[in-house]
């Protein structure tokens, strides 16, 4: 290809690129995901209402304005068991600053009779919700246990950690982020 033709082609490519940058600009910021609920970073946390083992109803909306960690787990899941003491330890440190931890037992795939001994064994003091019909698991498109959703005071998911056990540093880093 002749140099003049080649340079013309490059110029056309660059010009087309500039046109595309302006044509595809999002002037109204309409793509901001925070307005619709989805279990993904940057989206509104989907609402759920579940019961605890003593029959108390707890909804995520009850905690709007607070930093919330939703940890989905099951008693038979080894990484869930491994990270539970760390979550409890960090919860003890941050609860006075307004941190809410909701432990959602994926009861649909768990043995309900094993939950109370589990809570006692790990001295868990944060609320444990029972996802008996898998409603919350479906809403949060649960694909692996444990899965943790770090939700900011504005109700937007700031981070999703799939799998575990989470290290203490990762837990603290994400909590510091949602407490801002």
């Amino acid at each position, binding site marked *: 290809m002749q140099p003049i033709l080649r340079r013309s082609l490059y110029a056309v490519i660059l010009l087309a690129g500039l046109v595309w940058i302006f044509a595809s600009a999002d*002037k109204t910021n309409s793509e901001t*995901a925070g307005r*619709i609920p989805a279990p993904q970073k*940057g989206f509104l946390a989907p609402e759920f209402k579940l019961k605890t083992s003593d029959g108390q109803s707890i909804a995520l909306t009850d905690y709007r304005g607070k930093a919330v960690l939703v940890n989905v787990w099951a008693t038979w899941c080894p990484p869930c068991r491994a990270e539970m003491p760390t979550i409890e330890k960090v919860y003890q440190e941050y609860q006075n600053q307004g941190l809410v931890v909701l432990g959602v037992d994926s009861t649909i795939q768990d043995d309900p009779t094993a939950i109370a001994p589990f809570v006692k064994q790990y001295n868990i003091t944060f609320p444990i919700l029972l996802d008996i019909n898998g409603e919350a698991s479906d809403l949060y498109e649960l694909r*692996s246990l444990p899965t943790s959703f770090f939700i900011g005071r504005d109700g937007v998911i700031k981070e999703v*950690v799939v799998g575990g056990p989470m290290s*203490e540093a*990762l837990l*603290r880093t994400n909590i510091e982020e949602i407490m801002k």
Partner: protein
Amino acid sequence: MSILSVFQNLFVPPRDLILIILAAWIGLTLSERRAPRHHVNLDSLSNLLLISLVSFVAGGRVLYALENLAIFAQSPASIFSLDTALFDQWGGLVVAAITAFAYGRRIHLLLWPSLDALTPLFATLAIGIAFSHLASGAAFGKETNVPWAIDQWGASRHPTQIYEIIASILTLALILIQKPTVKPGYEFLLFVALTSASRLVIEGFRGDSTLILGGLRAAQIAAWLILLIALIGLDYQKRLNHEKE
């Protein structure tokens, strides 16, 4: 259950890392096969890659710890944690690039032929990353009604991860069909140009862009600038080639 759902369940994070490791393995094999045509010593290249990998892992973790110093001071053992989320990817890449450059100079590896030899690895890694985006649902598209839209994160969206996979496969194919007579640096610059051009186009369909200056997408501006540099480089090289002939 759709094929997409089966794929996403199979490679749910952190298992999506398997896709990147698989791509790295294939890419390394391709790079090793093509190293002789660029007159690059295979052992030197392997050593360079090993050192880069170690500095990527160590650099990414140390930088992450430095960014969160107060937290790591409370649990210093976390610096050795197997938790892959405790990692600064971009920081790790910068550390790896600096280390590779310094080590390459020390063992007298020529820069452009080495980059050419490594280009199939870079191109294959891009495919692996695109597949990992598809598995995790990251780098998702904006809402649309096009017939090929996919349901993701509560809306019908452009399948930008699939666009990314197609673009990166085409880029690799174009790299692999290059004749062996091309000048040093050509394959690498071609890869950079094609990758930045595809990012420039695909970013326009993304639903998670960082917006600046009244709605412009930051990644598109960066991609355009990189494309500009790559095209200047390609033109300069063609000119040198022409003068020699």
